[in-house]
């Protein structure tokens, strides 16, 4: 089909004259004739075109009662042949194929409606972007998985567990090798320092750990405790030597803030709790709750707590 054929229909509502006046492009004679036919109701049968299937054409036109003036697609196709001699106008126009046209229009409309509705619903539901995106949108957050991926790579000879006091490149740690025991993180609010090697294991399980400077005013400590207490995958403890009043961390992520009222703390928890984890579905219960900042596996009569 030439493009001329496709375009032509768009003007077919105009009168033949207007069309002619518009002066459609090259295949002028034939085109004009066509349009004229299209606009004229019930044209007289004309000599058959040089098509190979005159029968079909006849049948087709015969099946269309009335030969209404076209409203939709254009008269089709007298054959966009450039080299063909313009014979007497071809009457195919009256055999407009309403079947496919109606099906197209109907199906297209239904498709557009379905897709539009679906897209609307999905967009409406997608008010919660993926947690990684939400985390990335928190101002001032550090994503160490991205900036320092080597912190999270284990020596294959050792694995991810190591006993005793460990050193970490960040303070507080945000992941990496840790003790066998984990700190219980069932919404536990620890009044004193806890072993960072155990808290790191808790973060591996998906916990968010809120660490605060021991000098943080009590009302702020209480505010933080309200976000933690009795809530799974949360734990909190003072952290001497902290360079900021509050540091919130999950596996690979950290956010340091000055005030417990900072809304980014909740954003951090919503995005990362249970999501930032190396071990999905691991529990926060069964961990250590004993007081003291010494890793439990260094305490002489080592006794698994829980």
């Amino acid at each position, binding site marked *: 089909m030439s493009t001329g054929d496709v375009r032509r229909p768009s003007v077919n509502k105009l009168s033949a004259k207007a069309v002619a006046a518009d002066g459609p492009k090259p295949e002028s004679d034939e085109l004009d004739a066509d349009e004229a036919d299209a606009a004229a109701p019930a044209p007289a049968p004309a000599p058959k075109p040089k098509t190979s299937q005159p029968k079909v054409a006849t049948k087709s036109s015969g099946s269309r009662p009335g030969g209404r003036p076209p409203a939709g697609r254009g008269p089709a196709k007298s054959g*966009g042949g450039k080299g063909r001699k313009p014979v007497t106008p071809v009457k*195919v126009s009256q055999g407009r194929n309403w*079947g496919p046209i109606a099906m197209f229009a109907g199906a297209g409309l239904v*498709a557009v409606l379905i897709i539009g509705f679906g897209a609307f619903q999905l967009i409406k539901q997608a008010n919660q972007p993926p947690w990684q995106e939400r985390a990335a949108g928190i101002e001032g957050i550090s994503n160490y998985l991205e900036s320092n991926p080597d912190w999270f790579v284990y020596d294959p000879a050792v694995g991810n567990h190591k006993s005793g006091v460990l050193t970490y490149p960040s303070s507080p740690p945000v992941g990496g090798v840790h003790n066998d025991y984990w700190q219980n993180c069932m919404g*536990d609010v620890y009044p004193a320092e806890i072993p960072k090697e155990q808290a790191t294991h808790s973060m591996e399980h998906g916990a968010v750990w809120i660490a605060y400077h021991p000098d943080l005013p009590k009302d702020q400590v209480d505010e933080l405790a309200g976000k933690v207490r009795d809530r799974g995958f949360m734990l909190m403890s003072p952290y001497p030597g902290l360079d900021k009043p509050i540091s919130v961390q999950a596996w690979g992520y950290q956010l340091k803030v000055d005030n417990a009222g900072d809304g980014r703390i909740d954003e951090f928890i919503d995005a990362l709790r249970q999501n930032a984890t190396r071990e999905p579905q691991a529990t926060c219960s069964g961990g250590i709750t004993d007081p003291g900042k010494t890793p439990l596996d260094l305490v002489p009569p080592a006794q698994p707590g*829980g």
Partner: protein
Amino acid sequence: MAQVVTPRRLKIAGGVLGAVLLVFIGYAAGWLTPRLSTPGESSPEAGFARDMSEHHAQAVEMGMIAYQKASQPEIRTLGGDIALTQQGQIGVMQTWLKDWGLGPNSSRPPMAWMRDGDQAVKGNLMPGMATREEIAMLRAATGKDVDIRFLQYMLRHHLGGVHMAQEVLKLDPGPEVRELAETMIRNQSGEIQVLRTMLGKLGATPLN
């Protein structure tokens, strides 16, 4: 060669394009239907899956303490049974959330999905849950004291859990949620009788 567009060819072309369009529509509908029919961010189903996971996690914690420390073998067994069952159900509920394209966290308060849910929570504590102090006492207990505390806390916990499951059923949840909620009600109601009987044998009574 000139393309002769006959009505027949037009019909064929229309038919082919129509068929393609129908296939496309069918595919689009099939793709969209599950997405449109899965529970959304603030649906009762999502709220139930999130909160019941949290609720179950404490049953796992208490069950494991009893499994390790209870003085009577049948209470150790019961603790292990409860812990394993509820941990398994947590996995089911978390898988739902993943399948629904939802996260494990909600920015809404606990129990917001439930009718009068705001009155059912104390802070972050959902119905029947033990406080951290109570869990600490259970952990620190020894001998028969472990047995009694576990039975008391677990009985209260199950009553709260059954209540939550009954409430979600009132909200006409999807079939998977309905089935699991019914399972919870059936099994935990059975265990509630067992817990009561065991408490009675120990000469103790349920809390409040």
